[in-house]
């Protein structure tokens, strides 16, 4: 029955991992805008001039 203890601990660790990721996501601002990203992903990537297009990651802290 010793395995049960291990499993309980493992289940707790997995749950804690997801709680941690939720915290990370919330802190990172992923719940701030619940519409924009769903649209953004559908925009076509066009061949643009690299020089003019210094794309900065959207989550950059300002």
């Amino acid at each position, binding site marked *: *029955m010793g395995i*049960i*203890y291990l499993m*309980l601990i493992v*289940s*707790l660790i997995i*749950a*804690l991992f*997801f*709680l941690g990721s*939720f*915290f990370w996501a*919330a*802190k990172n601002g992923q*719940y*701030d*805008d*619940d*519409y*924009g990203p769903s*649209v*953004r992903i*559908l*925009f*076509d990537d*066009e061949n*643009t001039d690299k*020089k*003019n*297009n*210094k*794309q*900065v990651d*959207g989550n*950059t802290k*300002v």
Partner: protein
Amino acid sequence: MKESCFHCGDDIIGKAYQAGPKQFCCNGCKNVYLLLSENGLDSFYEMEPGAGTRPSTSNFHKYDFLDVPEIQERFIGFEDDNSIHVTFFLPTIHCSSCIFLLENITKVDPRIYSCHTNFTKKEATIIFDKNTLMLSELAILLDRIGYAPNFEERSDVRGGINKLFLYKLGVAGFAFGSIMLWSFPEYLGIEGTDPEIRRFTSYLSLLISIPVFLFSANEYYRSAFKALRYRSINIDVPITFGIFALYSQSTYTILTGSGPGYMDSFAGFIFFLLIGKWFQNKTYQNLSFERDRESYFPIAVIRKKDEQEEIVEIDKLNIEDVILLRNDEIIPCDSFLQSSSAQIDYSFVTGESLSKEIFKGDLVFAGGKIIGQRTEFRVKNTPKRSRLNELWDSSSIELDGDSQQDQDNISLYFVIIVLVLALGTGIAWLFIDPSLIVHTVVSVLIVACPCALALSRPFTFGNTLRKLGRSGLYLKNIEVIQRMNNITDIVFDKTGTLTKGGYENVSYKGDVLTSRQITQIMIITRSSTHPLSRGILNYLAKGNLLEKFEMEDYCEVPGKGIQAKIDGDFVMIGARGFVNSTSETIVEISSYVKIAGVTIGKFSFQSELRNGVSDLINRLMQTKMIHILSGDNTKDLDLLREEIPSLKELHFNQSPTDKLAYIKNLQSQGRHVMMIGDGLNDVEALVASNVGIAVSDDVFQFTPSSDAILEANGLHRLDSFFGVSYHAKTVLKICVWFSIVYNFVGLFFAVSGMLTPLIAAILMPISSITIVVISTLFVLSKRL
């Protein structure tokens, strides 16, 4: 054969502006299209046809203040040697195309490095090259493509969901799920397992429920404590009571090894409560209900000092300073006119749509808007002491107590009943079996915890809020629904509320127009974007062909009129003073026409009732008193009398103070007043009324402070909105009855000493879930 503008989707009035095969309603839209297509952003239109926003035609000097370093600091988030990160609030962001356009703005202007939009907050964070691009130029560029930045001070309430709340919800959900998993042997009644394992899982549950108890639920304790300190009771008092009873009992049984406790019920209860709260708070973040008069005012003006012009912040103005205002700018404080004459549009303050001419030395009040050329003023009062501010402050916002009253009464009875029951149970068990007294009393407290009762209100009203929002009525919070149910009187503000804002109802008086004259008028009005010109053009466009004539020397005098030479004749259209006509004084909006030196007639604009308004008022009059207060003069009195003959309470020429007094007077007679208004001139009355509804054609752009915002095209459904709010009250009653039944069943087990963790674990979540389902289904099934 109505064509719509390729850019903004509005109907094209008269002849369209062409760019290749595409047609546009105005030059502004066409320019935006050209700008976008030159830079390869045509796919903007593929996503949503007519998605653009018509750019404003105002002057672009209005952003000059952005180049003053002190003011800049407020908007700049980060700055290094080459670039600036700035966050602008752009209220016109409304669809996916907006996001596309704004994030591809780097293609329009390579000096912009990147743009990231936040749709929920309607913000754009832009990084640009600070050495080559000025902040004001950036603002102008955004304005040109139809996204004029808004610089009002904004509270953080708007800033999406509170992160701390998300953490609380996460912790409660995590604990709920984990404890349920570990409690499975209990649910399934597996007896044979090792008692050591059981003890181990109990301790684990106890451990992870600590953050739920201390962190997730703490706002309930705080609220209950606050209420008790003021010697009152709110719904959070019995909730806190239940939480403490449940938690301490469970902790006790776990630590003494006498049972597994109710930690799953506890964590689940907190989780559901928080979800209910989230549901209730998830109102319309992108609408502003708190905007007051000052947010429409400029941030800075030009001050003239020692023959030098400088831009200063409004707060730094002193009495006797000379300020310069340009076309379309709002007077920030009471002042005297220095220039020889000026046209002032007071529609912001009085609702009066005719502009007023003033002369040197006249006093002008804050809130007026300049029409025409640059004008100098001498400051009489600093902005803090202006007449409007005094008005504002005098209309103290009284919190009416009846909003929360019903719920609090229920809470009070609830607490009393539960305490009496617990006491009774304790006394009864004293005789039956004294060793079980603590167990039964605590069981009563646990079961009586008003889970379902606490959930029924946020879910029922939250759903109602959402339902109304989908039909165009956006309520500030759920309290407004309760207040709506008590309304006995409805006060309408006529200007722009019952009538259409546009200039569609045109009539012509004067000499009969020849087809040549008609063509001349059409050619000249087509060149102007002024609403009156468009109205005339639209009126004449019905059935008249447009011939080609040459137009020369076109000139538009803001606030006065337009003139040009067409096919050899000098044509003037505009205000009476502009064309020098000498007809009788009239109180209506009209444009006079003068061709080749002869005034031949005038176009008059009557306001028109919005669709369905007269039917609406007739329906509403069956149950409520209807009053109409108007800031306008009596020019539309006949129109209203004609349409709705049974209307008694019609008051015209009402100043904002009169409106406020009228509402206060009704309230002192014990009436509950709903005020439906539009402009800022109604704000005092809107705030004073029990329910203040602001009607707006564009809910994201112009909304004064109010309890609710109504889309103008939803006005005729006002009576069905009342129906929905009555329905919500009924649903709430049903939910409360359900939760009472559940509580009785639970109390039966508790009082008889038979409450086991299993029964608690089944009963409590089921009661919560049924309440959520009932309130959602009943509210959504009601047809509007």
